[in-house]
Every structure is written in structure tokens, then in C-alpha cells.
């Protein structure tokens, strides 16, 4: 232990420190001014994010239960960055909320769980991390305390998560039963691809597919997204999805190498179903949160497409896409939350004629949509291209054709939003939206990310260099 303990577990220790600090603040109840509290918390989150770039090292702790390396640190930094952006975007909403500190305590607890999950070197640890990240999230879904839909979302989240956890645990127990170990470093040698192990693998995959809302395990997504407060919805769609993808990259894809073919075919089937269902349902939504829910399901399909590559190239493209996705999706959610905060409107049709009074936010939303659709010059184009390029390496061009042609379908529904903003007429369009500095700052960062991440190849190169 000693010094190594502190350097290796720095991200987790940092988060725990902040959580305890916030708990003390809550009990002390000394700072009454909401904006002071918010500034303080955001400053802490910024410090936490910045600290992720210094004094990093590789190694394992607790006899292989916990491990970290450059990629894992990078993934944690991505999550910390996304959380910071979400926190900034939620500023105006939280300012009016009486349980501000609790929100952050729960939020950071889930982030802590995700960090443990990514760093885990053992299935037990992975499961613990997963639970720690899920249960506070369910509480967060209920954070619009006076809305019935919010409670409904929380309940659905708890039930479906519990179900997924059961399946996952069942799978893990079978793995233990057939191999006698749960440590990631030892498992590949023991997995021979027997019938029971195949079943175990499928159960584990399903457990994670639930969290990723891979079709046909996506049913909870739209309802939970719709009911939850927008800050939580954006957290669910970006950070919690991202964390699971990171688990796929760092541990799961290396574990089941002996079942490479099964792994690949399961991925292909999931991709086809996920993209199809996500696209078909996204077309029909009017509620913009449900719309973004189905769009995020489709995006997950594309991320899995990149992961079929199975090499560094696939991992790099998936991590890069998630960075871009954070910018684009949070920009979209940011505008939605501004509108919803001020007018209570959450439908695509409410955005008709939006551009008339809101030039800047209109463009922000449009650019976010184009980035999600993968249209240049936005970064989304590069993200999608790299995923598709990575997916093509296996030479499965039918799958590539399917994915590329589905980009046309998704362009249709993203353009619906753009059309509403710029083209559709409306008798009384949304008034000029006022927002605080923090929200503007966060949206500015998102815009910068959407425009610059693509042209500037440094970020992709950085990710590749971390993977080496």
C-alpha cells in the first residue's frame, strides 16, 4: 500500500473526498446561498477533472481486485468531464431545487461506482461497482419530487436494473461454477467455450445489454428518460452508457477471446436490432426526451459496430465517439433543458419557429442534431466514420451497408428537429430564452467540442497513444 494506493486510486479517493465534504456541508448547513454552493461544487468537480491528468500510474491493488492503466485513467477523465458539463448545464435547475447537495452526493456516488466498475479486475468488484452506480441513479430519477412521472421513472429504473443484475449474477455464478475463478487475468485461460460457459457469457452480455439499452432490452429507456429530470436524463444517456461501453473495452472484450466467433455474432445481431428499432421508434416520437432516448439507442448500435473490430482501432473509435457524443448530446439536452426550464415545453412541435427568437440556441440545437446524425463539419461525422471504418475491418460489408444506409434513416428524424427550428411556422414560438452564465459556458464548451474535435486530430491521436 502506501504511496501507490494513493496514486492508483486517486480518481476514486478524490470523489469520495468530495462526497464527504458535501455531506459535512449538508449537516453544517452554513452556506445558505444556492449559487455559492453551486460554484463551490462545480469548482470541486473541475479540480477533480483536472487532477485526472496528473500523477497517473499503472498497477493493481487488493490482489488483483482493482487495476488501472493509461486507458482506464483516460476513460475516467472522460466521465469526469461529462459530469462536470452536466453539472454546469443543470445550474439553473438546481438553483431552484431544495435538495441541491443531495443531488450532487448521489450523482458523485454513481460516478464513483462507475470508476470502480471500469477499474475492476474481478467479477465481484465489477458487480459491486455496477450496483453502486445504479442505485443512486434510480434515486436521482425521482428528483423532480412533485412529478408523478418522475417517481414512475425511478421505479421502472429500479425494477429493470434489479432484473438485469439478477441475470448478470446468474451468468457470473455459472462462470464461477465452470472455471473456479472470477479474476479477469485468470479467466481467459479457463474459458474453453463449452455449452455452459456459452450460456454464462450470454447471460453476462444480457446483463450489460440492459444497462446499455441494447434491443431487445431497451424497454425501460424511453419511459425513464421521459420521466426523469433533464439533468439526470442526460447523465443516463451519456455517462452511464459511456461507463458500460468502457467496461466492454477494458475488460469484457479481452475476457471472452476464446469465444471470439460467438462474441462477434452476438454483437452483429444486437447491432442490427438496436439500430433498426432505435431508428424506427425515434421517427415517431414527439416528446423530445423520448426522441433522444431512441436516438441514443441507435447511437449505441453504432458504438457496438466499432467494438466488433476487436482491436485497438475499435476501442479508439469507441472512446473517441463517446467524447464527441458527450459534446453533441449534452448540447442538445442543454437547449432542451433551457426551454423546458422556462416554458415547460418538451415536445418537438414546441420547437416550431424556435429560430425566430432564439438565434444562437437555434444553431446550437441544429449543430447538435447534425453532429448526432454524423454530418460534417461537425465532430459527429468523424466519430461515426471512425466507428464504421473500424467495423469494416472484419470485411462484413453487408453490416457496413446496413449501418451506412441507416444513417440516412437517422438523418430523417434529426432533420425533423432542424426543420421544426428553422422552417416550420408557429403562431407563438418560444420566447427569447434567458439562461445563466454556467449554462452558456457549458453550451459554449459543447459547441467548441462539436466544431473543433473533428478538425483537430489531436484528441483522436491522444486516445490512440493512450491505448498503445
Amino acid at each position, binding site marked *: 500500500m502506501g504511496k501507490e494506493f494513493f496514486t492508483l486510486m486517486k480518481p476514486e479517493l478524490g470523489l469520495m473526498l468530495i462526497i464527504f465534504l458535501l455531506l459535512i456541508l449538508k449537516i453544517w448547513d452554513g452556506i445558505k446561498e444556492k449559487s455559492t454552493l453551486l460554484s463551490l461544487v462545480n469548482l470541486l468537480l473541475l479540480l477533480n477533472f483536472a487532477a485526472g491528468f496528473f500523477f497517473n500510474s499503472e498497477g493493481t491493488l487488493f490482489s488483483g481486485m482493482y487495476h488501472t492503466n493509461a486507458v482506464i485513467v483516460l476513460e475516467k477523465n472522460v466521465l469526469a468531464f461529462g459530469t462536470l458539463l452536466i453539472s454546469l448545464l443543470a445550474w439553473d435547475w438546481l438553483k431552484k431545487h431544495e435538495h441541491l447537495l443531495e443531488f450532487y452526493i448521489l450523482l458523485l456516488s454513481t460516478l464513483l461506482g462507475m470508476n470502480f466498475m471500469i477499474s475492476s479486475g474481478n467479477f465481484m468488484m465489477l458487480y459491486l461497482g455496477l450496483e453502486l452506480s445504479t442505485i443512486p441513479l434510480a434515486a436521482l430519477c425521482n428528483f423532480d419530487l412533485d412529478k408523478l412521472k418522475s417517481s414512475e421513472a425511478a421505479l421502472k429504473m429500479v425494477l429493470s436494473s434489479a432484473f438485469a443484475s439478477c441475470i448478470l449474477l446468474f451468468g457470473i455464478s455459472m462462470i464461477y461454477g465452470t472455471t473456479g475463478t472470477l479474476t479477469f487475468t485468470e479467466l481467459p485461460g479457463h474459458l474453453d467455450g463449452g455449452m455452459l460457459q456459452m450460456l454464462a457469457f450470454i447471460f453476462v452480455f444480457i446483463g450489460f445489454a440492459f444497462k446499455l439499452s441494447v434491443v431487445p432490452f431497451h424497454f425501460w429507456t424511453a419511459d425513464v428518460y421521459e420521466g426523469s429530470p433533464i439533468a439526470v436524463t442526460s447523465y443516463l444517456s451519456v455517462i452511464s452508457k459511456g461507463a458500460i461501453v468502457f467496461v466492454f473495452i477494458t475488460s469484457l472484450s479481452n475476457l471472452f477471446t476464446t469465444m471470439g466467433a460467438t462474441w462477434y455474432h452476438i454483437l452483429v445481431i444486437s447491432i442490427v436490432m438496436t439500430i433498426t428499432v432505435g431508428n424506427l421508434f425515434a421517427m415517431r416520437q414527439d416528446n423530445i426526451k423520448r426522441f433522444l432516448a431512441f436516438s441514443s439507442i441507435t447511437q449505441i448500435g453504432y458504438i457496438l459496430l466499432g467494438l466488433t473490430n476487436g482491436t485497438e*482501432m475499435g476501442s*479508439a473509435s469507441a472512446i473517441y465517439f463517446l467524447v464527441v457524443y458527450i459534446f453533441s448530446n449534452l448540447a442538445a439536452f442543454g437547449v432542451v433543458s433551457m426551454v423546458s426550464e422556462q416554458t415547460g415545453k418538451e415536445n418537438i412541435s414546441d420547437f416550431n419557429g424556435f429560430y425566430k427568437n432564439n438565434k444562437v440556441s437555434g444553431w446550437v440545437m441544429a449543430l447538435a442534431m447534425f453532429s448526432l446524425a454524423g454530418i460534417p*463539419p461537425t465532430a459527429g461525422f468523424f466519430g461515426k466514420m471512425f466507428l464504421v*471504418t473500424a467495423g*469494416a475491418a472484419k470485411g462484413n460489408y453487408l453490416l457496413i451497408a446496413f449501418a451506412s444506409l441507416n444513417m*440516412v434513416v437517422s*438523418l*430523417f428524424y434529426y432533420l425533423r428537429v432542424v426543420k421544426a427550428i*428553422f422552417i416550420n411556422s408557429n403562431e407563438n414560438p418560444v420566447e427569447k430564452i434567458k439562461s445563466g452564465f454556467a449554462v452558456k459556458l457549458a453550451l459554449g464548451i459543447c459547441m467548441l467540442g462539436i466544431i473543433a474535435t473533428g478538425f483537430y486530430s489531436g484528441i483522436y491521436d491522444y486516445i490512440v497513444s493512450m491505448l498503445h
Partner: protein
Amino acid sequence: MNLTLLILIPLITAIVILTCKNLQSVRWVAFIGSLVQLGLSGMLLLAYHAERVAGNTAQMLFSERHSWYSALNIEYYIGVDGISIAMILLTAFVVAAGVLISWKMEMLSKEFFFLLMLLSVGAYGFFISLDLFTMFFFLEVAVIPKFLLIGIWGSGKKEYSAMKLALMLMGGSALVLIGILGIYYNTNDGTGHHTFDILKISQQHIPMSLQMYFFPVLFTGFGVFTAMFPFHTWAPDGHSSAPTAASMFLAGISMKLGGYGCLRVAMYLMPEGAHHYSWAIILVATIAIIYGAFATLMQKDLKYINAYSSVSHCGFVLLGIGMMTHTAIVGAVMQMVSHGLMTALFFGAIGMMYDRTHTRQVAQLGGLLKVMPFIGVVFVIAGLCSLGLPGLSGFAAEMTVFMGSWQNPEMWHRLATILACASIVVTAVYILRAAGSSVMGPIKNEEFRKLTDAKWNEKFASVLLLAAILAIGMAPFWLINLVGPDSQIIMDHLTNAGGL
């Protein structure tokens, strides 16, 4: 000559437009920006000539190469040959004319000119790219401006048209993407990595079994952009709903992206595939020529007339490409330039008439030559160019295509050539009918007497395009000399591959 300037100038213009405070400054910034582009492309032409005269035999001149995404071997690699210079000149002329024609655009003018400039960034970038990924990037840049230009400033069923155009072109891009990836994974740059570099790929042999699949995919993908039958349906709706300048851009430049891509990417990189499928290219091209011509006969709206005739005229481009003789390919490139200029002029004239009379129905127009002689004459000249009157660019281009096609001695190819030639008669019918009843004859509506003739900006735009049309029509040799040697390179490539 720094080619990156061709991308930077419109980009800077676009950004400056965003910072402008009033309508006047927006207009002038856009106008000056487009003049700079025109000057730059003229200088490029001269510099290119000077290099060639000095004996520079490199395939691509002024090339510039920077590593972009090194992990995937994606480069910002640009360079020009005669064919790209012809396309760049076309773009510069159409952009300048488009800006001038839209002088009176007052609704959201800042956004309008910004998007026009963004569209031209995409076109210039596409024509100078020598890296497939960069090329694809520029091809797709145009999606945002196209959709918004038609959707916001369009007329008629603009929402439907904008959506249809965006989705069909995106479908084309999706096919192009599949083709590009198919090529990418079957190349290597000598160090064990795959490459997107067009010149390097052209020296490698992609297995015939793959070309069988990827050539049609890639060719169809680019074909959608150039309104290849049966994927032409976006063109009539899109062109006729778009505002004047956007129609000029779409028909004048965007459709040429497809033709250029077919030639530079599909044919050049997969020559065996091209040989194998040439019959199909000729077949769809001939259908497009005949069908487009007859479909035009039935149209009553001037914009639809020009849009359907564009389908027919772009068929000549594909016919020339499919015939695979040197003369035919030169003709195809000339037809791209000629059609770009002519259709821009035609749409410009129709736009000017529509601005004044508020109708595009042939039946409601009449006698316009009496009240607006300048616009009427421009309209008639554009029409005559379209039907291939000697002395105008249309004749030079179509004649070259026909001559080149006839050089292909196979019976079916000769038949296709004869059918394509015959379509000119139909063209003459619809052009003369439209010109006769809309600008000549008695004035049908007394309101028309109050209308005024073209303003300075409209005259400037028309003269610009007319000058280019005449320059090609009267002296086609300079264009032939410009694109000839590079067409020969592509032709040699095809010949070697086909063992002809």
C-alpha cells in the same frame, strides 16, 4: 499557388458574413468574397498553364500533403489536374453569379449568404481532394446548406423537397462510403497500412472479385448526386423548390460533384469494374437522356422544365463516361462545365422572371421580351445553349460526347449514341416551345407592362455566365487542351485494365 486558399477564402467570407451588422455589408462581403474566388481560380488556371508549358509533367500540380488522422492514414492531400481546374472555374463562376442574383435576398440574409459560402467550400474542397476520406468529408459538408437553403428560402412544397433531396443525397453518400471503405481495406501504402490516397490506390490492383461489388455501389453512390436514372427524382423537386441561387448551385455545381466522383474515383480506381459494367452505365444514361427529354415535354413550370432537362443533360455526362473513349471522356467533362454554366444561367433567368411576374407557369407568361428585353434575351440564349446551338458551349460539349461515343464500334453502343443524338430533337421542341410562349408572342397579362428590366447585379451575373458559355462555345480548344491530357491518363488506365 496555394490551393488551400480555395477553401479558406469562402470560409473566411462566411465567417465575416456572420459578423456583419446590416444587409448592405453582408451583400458586399459575399460579393467581394466571390470575386476573390473568381480571381483566384483564374490565377490558378494561368499558373497551371505556366507550369505545364514549363514542362512539369506531374499528374497533380500544386499538391500539398499533411497528415491528418495518422492512425488511420487519413491525409489532407490536395492537388489539381486539368479536370479539377475546369470544375473549380465552373464553381467560381456559378458562385459569383449566384451571389449577384440573390442581391435582393432580405429575409435572414446573413444566414443565406453564409450557407451559400459553406456550399462553395464543400465544392472547392471536393474538387481539389486527392484523399478519399477528405473528399468524402467535403462531399457531405453540403448536406446542411442544401437542406436549409431549400427549406427556409424555398417556394412551393419546399419542406418535402428539402427532405427528399437531403435524404436521397445522403443515401448516395452512404453508398459512396461503403465503396470507399471497400477500397480502403484492399490497399496498402507500402508500409503495411491501408491508404485513402487516390494516386497510390490507382497504382494498385483491387481484386476483380471485389470490384464486381464495389464498383456498382460506388458508381451508383456518385450517380445519385448527378441525378442518374432511376435516382434522379430528387432533382426536379429540389431544383424547383430551391431559391434561385440555390438552384443554380445545385444544378450547376452539386450535380457535377457526382460526375467528377464517378470519373475520378469509381472509374479511375476500379477500371476493371468499369469495363465490366460499362453496358449498365450506358443503358441508364441513355434512358435518362430519352426519359428526361420526354418528361420535360410534359412540364408546365419553367423550373421543372430546366430541372428535367438537367436530368437529360447529365445523362450525356454519364454516356460519355460509359463509352470509355478518350474523346467521349473529354466530352463528358466539357458537358459538365457547359451544363453547369448553362443551367445556372437558365435558373438565373427564370429566377429574374419569377421575381417580377411571380409565376413560373409557361401558360401565364408571354411577351416578356417586350417589357424586359435583357432578361428575355438571356433566357433565349440559355435555352439555345441547352438545345445545342453551334457557337454556344452546349454544342461543343455534346458534339464531343457524340463523336467520342461513335468511336466505340460496338453495335449496342452505336445504337445508344444514335438514340442520344435523336433526343436533341425533343430538346429543341421543349426549349423552343417554352421560349416561344413565355418570352415571345403577345403580352398575356396587362400587369406585366409595369415590370422593369434587369438591374445591374442581374446583368453582371448574366454577363459573367454568358461570357463563359461563349468562351467555350466559340473556342472550345482551350478547354479541350486543359482537360485532354488528364482524360488521357484516366483513359490509359482504363485501357490497360481492360486489355483493349
